[in-house]
């Protein structure tokens, strides 16, 4: 327990699902990003998966949206301390995209239109826990929230769910991404409150 601040009461939530430590609930959908929002036209959009051996797998917009679709409803947790429950998305599971990809890599580096990168262990992209999503609630994913498509990895802090995702590089060695280089945690488990380096 921390040092008590005299007179602080706070506003406790009663009932409902537990939140990760240090998070508070919001009904809004705030935005965290480092620069301008890239505008990516759908007719040139593509998603590129590359392996440590140099193999490349590419999907155009019609190809990606033509793959089997899933509709995850998930809770999301931002490192800036808001959590939002029961968000509905539609997209393609990374299991589908990784199916048949021959790799010995243990790490992944997602990269985005606009230059943003973030790293994750490859295992965290498997097992029905990660998607490339293009629909939020009932409409196309807005650009400020990462559209046309973003990564969705809800069991990690939300900066790992790279907006404007352009592709994923599979790597033998871990390589910190943009926010990780700026001081955020390498892994980012909200339930262990891994916000910053050293947590």
């Amino acid at each position, binding site marked *: 327990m*921390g*040092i008590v*601040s005299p007179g602080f009461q706070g506003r406790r939530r009663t009932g409902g699902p537990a939140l990760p430590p*240090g998070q508070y609930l919001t009904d809004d959908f*705030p935005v965290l990003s480092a620069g301008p*929002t890239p505008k990516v036209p759908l007719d040139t959009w593509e998603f590129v998966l590359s392996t440590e051996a140099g193999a490349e797998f590419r999907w155009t917009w019609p190809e990606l949206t033509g793959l089997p679709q899933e509709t995850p409803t998930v809770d999301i947790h931002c490192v800036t301390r808001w959590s939002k429950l029961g968000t509905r998305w539609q997209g393609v599971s990374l299991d589908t995209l990784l199916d048949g990809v021959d790799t010995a890599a243990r790490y992944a580096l997602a990269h985005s239109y606009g230059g943003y990168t973030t790293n994750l262990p490859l295992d965290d992209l498997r097992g029905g826990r990660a998607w490339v999503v293009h629909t939020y609630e009932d409409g196309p994913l807005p650009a400020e929230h990462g559209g046309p498509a973003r990564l969705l990895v809800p069991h990690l802090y939300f900066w790992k769910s790279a907006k404007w995702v352009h592709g994923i590089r599979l790597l033998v060695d871990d390589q910190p991404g943009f*926010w990780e*280089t700026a*001081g955020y945690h390498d892994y980012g488990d909200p339930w262990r409150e891994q916000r910053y380096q050293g947590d």
Partner: protein
Amino acid sequence: MTATTTVAGLASWRVARLVQRRTETPTAQTLILHVPGWPGHLPGQHVDVRLTAEDGYQAARSYSLAGPADGDRIALTVQRVPDGEVSSYLIDVYAEGYPVEVRGPLGGWFVWRPTESAPVLLVAGGSGVVPLMAMIRARRAAGSRVPFRLIYSVRTPADVCYADELRRRARDDQGLDVAYVYTREVPEGWRGEPHRIGLADVNTHGWPPELEPLCYVCGPTGFVETVADLLVGLGHANRRIRTERFGPTG
């Protein structure tokens, strides 16, 4: 893109006590905190502030540092958020000598280093002015002669944070220009109507892209989206535009 930050000691919470409080606007106050062992910070960085109740309940929020480090004293400007459990405590209850916990400095991207030589454009929406004010103060403190321009969008004249200091600095800090955009109500004798920031404001009061300025934009999401899009449209390179969005954070 590269960014680095002070990582040493970042993971630990430090006890901070209120030394002094200053009213900036009817809804914003600056708190000067004494933080023994504070490691220093760069303008633009923020801290997490954590409050603990008698029964162990905790709440934490992020606040921008409003000025350069002054030894083991730091300044935070807190904007009251309706129903905000942390901001309302800090503004209404928190008293001199009371402890809170702080952790930081945090954020290694939205920072300005006094060693930079490029001209700087700062664009603030509302309480987004706080980390930009830290840059203006740090510029002066470091004796930097880098040209700075601030475009500050506020609802009404009464909402201007640091109003007197900005007036004084615009006069005395050589190479600092300050321009205002009023969205609801303009000062008496002001030429022009209330309006939301637009192309003309950014073009008139910003830098031409050929000068390759560093642009820092901070404010609510919609404001930041608008300004960043305008800057890109005017020809500024994406990588020269750094943004920080303020959500409702209670």
